[in-house]
């Protein structure tokens, strides 16, 4: 007989330590995979997790990847904490990119300090509006936000495809599916010569701080917390449930939109088909690995960003496909959910009692 029982007393320190355990299990699992593929596991893991950040350029690349991941994840934490399942951050990122990119193209050839802030604002508003679609449909028509937000990802992707192939494609671009390179005034300033790390990291850090402030120090944050734990109680307390759903989706969408605009004005510098290597989906893993906690999310974003870099290095040095990165992301989530299950439930093995035979 196996019996599964709920644990009542989960200590907070263990709650924050299990993600670290999950990471170690992922390393172990990854080692086994490399071994089966015929590599020396320790060496392969070194190529995957240490080589990429062993120089300044690599470290800068890590931050470049972590910047959007952290930003999106922090936005998602507002939704997830209040029991709203926004799965479509990728679409909100792309739509933010489209709106921001459109404004950037509009200002093509313009100089002036005001250009970049306008583009960034436009990107945030774009993501926000796109996220409001599932929110409004959920509050007024009882639709399922998981499905709507997920399906809108493909809408955004196809719209971007259409724009870069058709109306917005570079007139001098030999029909490549991409827009013009944005003007210098529309680009995120880089922080150091020769490195790609850009000012977007400050947007992320400021957002993290503001989110911490909102979630833990304001009435809105308190209402989000209560609604996430018990909708019945939120109703009894008299919180405006519908308004709150829309607000958390707006915050989340704005963050994803900011991440999108940060990518196209930062490392990419134009719009093309693949402005995001699924940051919007991967950020879901980041949010949960960071326990929906702002500080936790910062660390989680660095670790998950490393899997992106590691995959590229492994492709070069070990000739394994770069999708290995996704295998590692999948393993992190798998082990996290697995250890969470054991954290909240205990499994009892009961011997068969005589009188039950």
């Amino acid at each position, binding site marked *: 007989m196996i019996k599964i029982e709920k644990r009542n007393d989960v200590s907070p320190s263990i709650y924050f330590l299990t993600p670290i355990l999950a990471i170690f299990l992922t390393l172990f699992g990854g080692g086994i995979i490399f071994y089966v593929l015929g590599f020396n596991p320790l060496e392969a893991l070194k190529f995957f997790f240490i080589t990429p950040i062993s120089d300044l350029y690599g470290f800068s690349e890590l931050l470049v990847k972590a910047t959007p991941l952290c930003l999106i994840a922090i936005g998602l934490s507002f939704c997830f904490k209040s029991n709203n399942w926004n799965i479509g951050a990728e679409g909100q990122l792309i739509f933010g990119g489209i709106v921001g990119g459109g404004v950037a193209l509009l200002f093509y050839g313009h100089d002036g300090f005001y250009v970049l802030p306008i583009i960034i604002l436009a990107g945030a508003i774009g993501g926000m509006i796109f996220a409001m679609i599932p929110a409004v449909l959920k509050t007024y028509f009882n639709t399922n936000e998981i499905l709507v937000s997920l399906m809108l990802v493909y809408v955004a992707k196809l719209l971007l495809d259409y724009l870069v192939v058709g109306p917005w494609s570079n007139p001098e671009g030999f029909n490549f599916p991409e827009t013009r390179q944005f003007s210098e005034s529309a680009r995120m300033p880089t922080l150091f010569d020769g490195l790609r790390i850009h000012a977007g990291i400050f947007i992320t850090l400021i957002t993290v701080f503001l989110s911490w402030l909102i979630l833990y120090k*304001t009435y809105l*944050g308190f209402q989000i917390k209560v609604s996430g734990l018990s909708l019945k*109680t939120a109703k009894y307390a008299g919180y405006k449930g519908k308004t709150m759903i829309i607000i958390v989706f707006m915050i989340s969408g704005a963050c994803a939109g900011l991440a999108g605009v940060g990518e196209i004005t930062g490392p990419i510098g134009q719009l093309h088909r693949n402005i995001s290597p699924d940051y919007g989906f991967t950020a879901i893993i980041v949010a949960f690995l960071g326990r929906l906690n702002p500080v936790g999310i910062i660390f989680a974003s660095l670790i998950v960003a490393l899997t992106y870099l590691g995959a590229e290095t492994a492709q070069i040095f070990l000739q394994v496909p770069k999708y290995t990165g996704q295998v590692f992301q999948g393993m992190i989530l798998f082990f996290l959910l697995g250890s969470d299950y054991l954290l909240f439930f205990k499994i009892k093995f009961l011997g068969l009692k005589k009188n039950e035979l």
Partner: protein
Amino acid sequence: MNTKLRVSEISKIYPGCVANDEISLEFGSGKIYALLGENGAGKSTLVKILSGVVRPDKGEVFLNDKSIKLNSPLDAKKNNIGMVFQHFNLFETLSVFENLSIDSDKKNEELRLSVNNILKKYNFKIDLDIPVLNLSAGQKQKVEIIRCLIRNPKVLIMDEPTSVLTEQETEDLFVSLKQFSDEGILIIYITHKLKEVLSLCDEVAVMRKGKVVSVSETKEEKIETLANKMVGENLSTIKKKINNFKYSEEILKISNLNFRSDDPYETNLINLNFSLKKGECLGIAGISGNGQSELFQILSGEIITEYTSIKFRDKEISKLNPRERREYLMAFSPEDRISQAAVPELKIYENVALNNFKSSNFFEKGLVNEKKIKEHSKKILSNFSVNTDNVEMKSQFLSGGNLQKLIIGRELITSPELLVCFNPTWGLDVGAINYIHETLININEQGKSSILISTDNDELLKLSDRICVIYKGKLSKIMDVNEVTPEKLGILMGGGSID
């Protein structure tokens, strides 16, 4: 075929609550047995034990004098015990026949033949090939019954079967049940509706607080006697409060309160009118499920209804949500203290912050004023003698009594003008009950009003100044507590009328 079912000294203890306390009962085929009791009396636990869903801590079940082990619902099926639950377990999008074939080991043709025989024999009219979602509640219940009948049950247990049925469907069900009984199936009928017990059943066992308080033939019983057994008639310790506010100003006036719900598990409320004076306690009695929960939610603002008028100190508040109503100094203590009035995962001070009166300034300019909330929480803990002074403790570690003191304290510490409470002492120990009763008497003596919705008649007679009874969503006339007797309450609670 004679069937005898006997339970012997069955006990089941949940943390903080004895659900079944040494229950022994005997049933024999050819009769319909009623198991009568309030919500929480332990009847559901007992039938869950009989159907193998819950395992008892102690005690045995005998079928035809043979001890049987019921470790799972499968064991119950093997022993020919069938059960129809209050909430249906059907797949809405599958057809009736597909639903029946899921847990049957017969071949499809064979099954169809036996189902058709059952349909013919009992004159059930159900199309086997349409999706279940197109059936009425009564038809769905018939599908559940057929599911049991396929297995030729010796015992058939019905858990509150009429709660979702119309009058006509109820009559049809009774005809079928009598037919089953005549064929030798032992029927155990769980309910808290007194009229049904008298019209359908032969014997009745009344449960109260986990114990069987009486077993008798229904022909020896009347609605009042059953009602009193069910809710208790121990009135010896009543202490009347002193009230000087009887003829003071009116502070709350409800007119034309109507509520219609699409949910069959909810009760519609029909044209409720009442008012409340300063310093008065109005008791609303009734057997649970007659609209109390809906009434509470309308008073608190969780449900907003059209056309209803609620005037608090001559201001129309019927469209305000609970938070806005609190600003008028109304306070609410709901029945479900564990998952509604408080969140177990939150710390005590966070639970205190749920009730945000304007005057308490917990959230100034949208920011959490943690210091103020904690000070306020400490005051509640000491003023209402909650047995901890640690406001950082999660409220899930409080016992039921202490949690209720915290909630009542949270509602009362800002001196509201009106407290609406719903079963405030449900499931508490005697000490906590007395404390809460004293508190409720005190607020009336301080000139604050209260509405007490309760299924405990002792409590109502002890605390109320005026009492009325809610039955099927309608209110009886409101009586002065001095002219109320337990007998009168019993008649009204069973749907009868008094002069």
